[in-house]
């Protein structure tokens, strides 16, 4: 062949196509904005950010291992009507520990009938942005869409068109004992839908609560969930955040968790991902004060041709901060799991301690893992460690169990459970933990 000149036109067309695609999503999103949440300043700014960007391709470092091109063939349209959901459909998702502290969004729209909010202590506010915005506009404007990283394409897309948001607002020193469960229900439509759920959690100084985000969907048509959750954990506040993604197999799930932590605050989170055809979690924590503690636990268990990607970032900018991260993937079938974890320790972040470990268990020859733990340390007086392992089940471990009378299949099951339980055990809500343990049966 004597044609060494690459054909650039193909790529240009593709970039154009990706830009047009992203724009079509934001156009569709704009048509469904409710009047009560016009938010012109926020929306216009976000729209401009979207228009500057293209739909990500694997040529970008952040998306190198996650190919979104199957989405380009699907015309997702913003949700315009409320789907009807029966109380029965939700029964298995409701956690008994959260009775009276449950907010339900269906396809990103608040469902007042299904939400039950009668067990909250006085002062704590949990509800929909649509109903709260008029009364608390000044306070909410201070926080809504103000997290770092808001320019990123999918976050901006959500800001352009979210139709409602869950607000969890804990005033100074309020302690909510009941875990607050946010149920994001996906109801796939007859044609492909785009839902853009959103949450805003404001934990003011000295407050404490557990917030559970549960993304749940049945099998169904192609669906796109583009979700954004902002957490503001102010001075000395303590938030436990449990995030569960168990969407249906037709769903593309792209999620952002943006956490801004004040001085002496604690943010401890466990994110578990079982569902979706393709899922991506951008998990960003910004420490903005001294002696801030961040703990991130993650478990992805996927099979068949599922794809799961976790991109985490913890930015330390002040002295005495700590980060502890353990992320695990169990990958079966032809599934593909990606982990990229950045911990950035700036010059000012002296006397910090950071540990990050990614462990992967491959259960089939066709399963694939890409892992990229990254520590970026500018400060010089810090204690940091990171690492990644990829392994299959150890034949010697299985033999040891067999030699005690346990058959090979049961031995394998025990070892996979053990691998997962290290993460699931961090979830201090028993009924959720046992539901997820049961769901592990698929991989064992």
């Amino acid at each position, binding site marked *: 062949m004597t044609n060494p000149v690459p054909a650039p036109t193909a790529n240009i067309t593709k970039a154009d196509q990706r830009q047009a695609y992203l724009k079509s999503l934001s156009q569709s999103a704009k048509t469904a904005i409710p009047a009560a949440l016009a938010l012109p300043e926020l929306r216009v700014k976000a729209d401009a950010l979207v228009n500057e960007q293209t739909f990500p391709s694997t040529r970008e470092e952040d998306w190198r291992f996650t190919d979104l091109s199957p989405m380009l063939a699907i015309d997702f349209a913003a949700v315009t009507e409320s789907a009807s959901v029966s109380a029965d459909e939700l029964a298995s998702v409701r956690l008994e520990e959260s009775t009276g502290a449950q907010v339900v969004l269906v396809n990103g729209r608040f469902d007042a009938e299904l939400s039950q909010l009668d067990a909250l202590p006085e002062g704590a506010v949990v509800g929909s942005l649509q109903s709260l915005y008029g009364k608390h506009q000044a306070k909410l404007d201070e926080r809504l869409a103000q997290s770092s990283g808001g320019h990123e394409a999918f976050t901006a897309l959500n800001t352009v068109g979210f139709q409602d948001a869950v607000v969890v607002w804990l005033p100074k020193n309020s302690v909510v004992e009941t875990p607050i469960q946010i149920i994001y229900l996906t109801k796939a439509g007859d044609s492909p839908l785009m839902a853009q759920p959103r949450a805003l959690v404001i934990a003011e100084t000295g407050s404490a609560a557990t917030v559970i985000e549960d993304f749940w969907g049945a099998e169904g048509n192609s669906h796109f969930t583009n979700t954004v959750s902002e957490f503001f954990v102010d001075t000395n506040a303590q938030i436990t955040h449990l995030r569960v993604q168990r969407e249906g197999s037709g769903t593309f799930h792209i999620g952002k968790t943006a956490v801004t932590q004040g001085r002496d605050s604690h943010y401890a989170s466990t994110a578990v991902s079982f569902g979706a055809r393709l899922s991506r979690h951008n998990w960003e924590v910004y420490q903005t004060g001294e002696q801030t503690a961040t703990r991130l636990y993650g478990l992805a268990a996927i099979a068949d041709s599922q794809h799961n990607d976790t991109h985490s970032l913890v930015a330390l900018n002040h002295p005495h901060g700590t980060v502890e991260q353990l992320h695990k993937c169990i990958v079966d079938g032809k599934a593909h799991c990606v982990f990229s974890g950045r911990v950035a320790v700036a010059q000012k972040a002296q006397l910090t301690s950071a540990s990050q470990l990614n462990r992967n268990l491959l259960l089939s020859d066709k399963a694939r893992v890409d892992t990229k733990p990254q520590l970026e340390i500018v400060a010089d007086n810090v204690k940091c460690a990171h690492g990644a392992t990829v392994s299959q089940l150890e034949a010697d471990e299985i033999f040891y169990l067999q030699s*005690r*009378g346990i058959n090979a299949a049961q031995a394998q099951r025990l070892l996979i459970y*053990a691998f997962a339980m*290290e993460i699931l055990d961090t979830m201090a809500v028993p009924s959720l933990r046992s539901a997820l343990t049961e769901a592990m049966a698929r991989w064992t």
Partner: protein
Amino acid sequence: MGTPHIEVFNKAASMINENSDVILSVKNLHATVDGTEILKGLNLEVKAGEIHAIMGLNGSGKSTFSKVLAGHPDYEVTAGEILFKGQDILELEPHERATSGIFLAFQYPLEIPGVSNRDFLRVAYNAHRKAQGEEEMDVFDFDDLIEEKLDVVKMDASFLDRSVNEGFSGGEKKRNEILQMALLEPLLSILDETDSGLDIDALKTVAEGVSQLATPDNAVVLITHYQRLLNYIVPDYVHVMADGRIITTGGKDLAHELENRGYEWILAEHKAEVAVS
């Protein structure tokens, strides 16, 4: 005579009885790993009530023999037979051998992070019960049973709630093996260098535990480098292995002689047989 006093744990008269049932019968056993022949015609008969010691230098095939008995998949039996209670076990899976009554105490017990010792023991115990057609034991009854067994190896109950062998000292791992033996009550226990690397207190605990578990109805095979363990558990027979077979068999005095004189003389005496292979 300056000999230190040593407490022998199996003081009672030997349990050897000519009329006892044969538990294990190994005939002309040949086995390979990765195509290399390690066992080259091993013969051994073990009857109920007997304690056997198998000694020999590194590389003589002692550990291979224990793994072949337990059914490790890396080892291939190329000739000979293993009869357990009169039945050929070569086609049995490792877990089937275990539930039929064969127990191997590992030289290097594995660590299994994330599986609590208590759960591991209960699952193993219930696998045995199921194989015998009995109902599984519930968590509460099992807790009572296992607390009782802890006394055999003087283990603290806190060990039950730690991950299997994770972060255990060498002695703790070996005691945990004997705890499993106490729980599963095997007909044939093979202890693969259970004494290696133990300090004297741990060795005594392990030896005392094993002695308590030896009865006229079961049998124990101790695989060891050192005579020291045999001061505490006196064997009925001492076998010497070299080059993949048992070259000679004696009584407990043979172990003392090996300790004092080393192996060279006995290998020289049996040179002809060793060379044939």
